[in-house]
């Protein structure tokens, strides 16, 4: 056998081997994956309105509900705490008068999300219905999104939460970036996000979520009629969280 023949036989064997593997894969059955076209999410655009005049200053109902619902790693240690929704105090000084305000901050679910643009593995992406989600299975923990987000809405999971507060929902293990996902699991089932529910349970109803494409929804009506503001509008990220009384 000369060298030519050797390569012919070797090549043939490799070809047969690989096609055999392919055939085995075909035989063991395949499941068709999803496409955007048959997604149930098309045509919707979820948005949020926060009425700061209704928000009570010391109330933490929405924060607690979110931490419980989504197993957010909250250790009460600011080095490792993850916040999907948080409250800050804003102070504005005009002349001699200064006013203080407490403001709820969360992921704004930007229409043009910089976090999704920079994610090298497309773990962060905008769903068809406008919710910006992190696929934690894919996230490699590079933290680009945390740098890209102009609202500091992203947090890195430095330390695992030990147990589940809500066993129906997953928690995140160490090494992924997280942010509010607008309770996508609840929205898909036609329920309201945990924070919205908690806020109306304490009788305030300061947070509202609705479909902005549906002109009959409460959220769309407020955005059309009232003087709403968004955060850092000049950046062109087109956030979908609107503030009343900011």
């Amino acid at each position: 056998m000369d060298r030519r023949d050797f390569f012919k036989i070797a090549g043939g064997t490799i070809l047969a081997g690989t096609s055999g593997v392919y055939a085995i894969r075909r035989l063991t059955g395949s499941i068709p994956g999803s496409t955007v076209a048959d997604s149930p999410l098309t045509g919707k655009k979820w948005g949020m309105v926060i009425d700061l005049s209704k928000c009570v200053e010391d109330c933490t109902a929405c924060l607690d509900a979110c931490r419980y619902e989504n197993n957010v790693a909250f250790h009460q240690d600011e080095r490792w705490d993850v916040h999907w929704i948080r409250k800050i105090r804003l102070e504005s000084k005009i002349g001699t008068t200064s006013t203080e305000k407490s403001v709820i901050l969360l992921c704004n679910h930007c229409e043009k999300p910089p976090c999704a643009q920079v994610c090298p593995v497309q773990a962060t992406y905008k769903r068809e219905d406008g919710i910006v989600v992190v696929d934690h299975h894919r996230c490699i923990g590079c933290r680009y999104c945390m740098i890209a987000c102009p609202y500091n809405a992203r947090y890195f999971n430095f330390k695992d939460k030990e147990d589940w507060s809500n066993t129906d929902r997953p928690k995140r293990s160490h090494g992924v970036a997280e942010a509010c996902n607008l309770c996508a699991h609840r929205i898909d089932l036609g329920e309201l996000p945990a924070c919205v529910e908690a806020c109306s349970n304490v009788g305030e109803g300061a947070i509202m979520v609705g479909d902005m494409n549906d002109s009959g929804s409460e959220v769309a009506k407020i955005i059309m009629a009232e003087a709403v503001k968004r955060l850092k509008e000049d950046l062109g990220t087109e956030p979908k969280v609107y503030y009343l009384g900011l």
Partner: protein
Amino acid sequence: MRSKDILNNKPSAAVAAIPITIILLPVLYSIFTFAFAQEKKGTEQFLEMPDAVYTKCVRDTEYMRHNHWVLLRVVREDVVRYGKRGEISLKRCGECHTSREKFCKKCHDAVSMKPDCYGCHYYP
């Protein structure tokens, strides 16, 4: 003189077959053991379902044995990316196969694979 003889002597097919066989040995071994294991149905002893809620699995046993991970991966993509929350989920698996120790871990330990589902997903 001797070295020239060796150069002129072309190696026979039998000589070439030896290295090829050695290279292919692991491949052949896995193919044979794969076929053999299917006949023996050796994994049956691993499955314990004391508190099964459903009478039937979402796919047949043979399919689940080899491709449960494909199914879970496709379902994951459906749910996370496209919002299609169907009946298949890790939670539903847990309604029949109630113990991770008695179910998942047995096979995965046997083949020394560590699925990392449970860092995030609750499975008793």
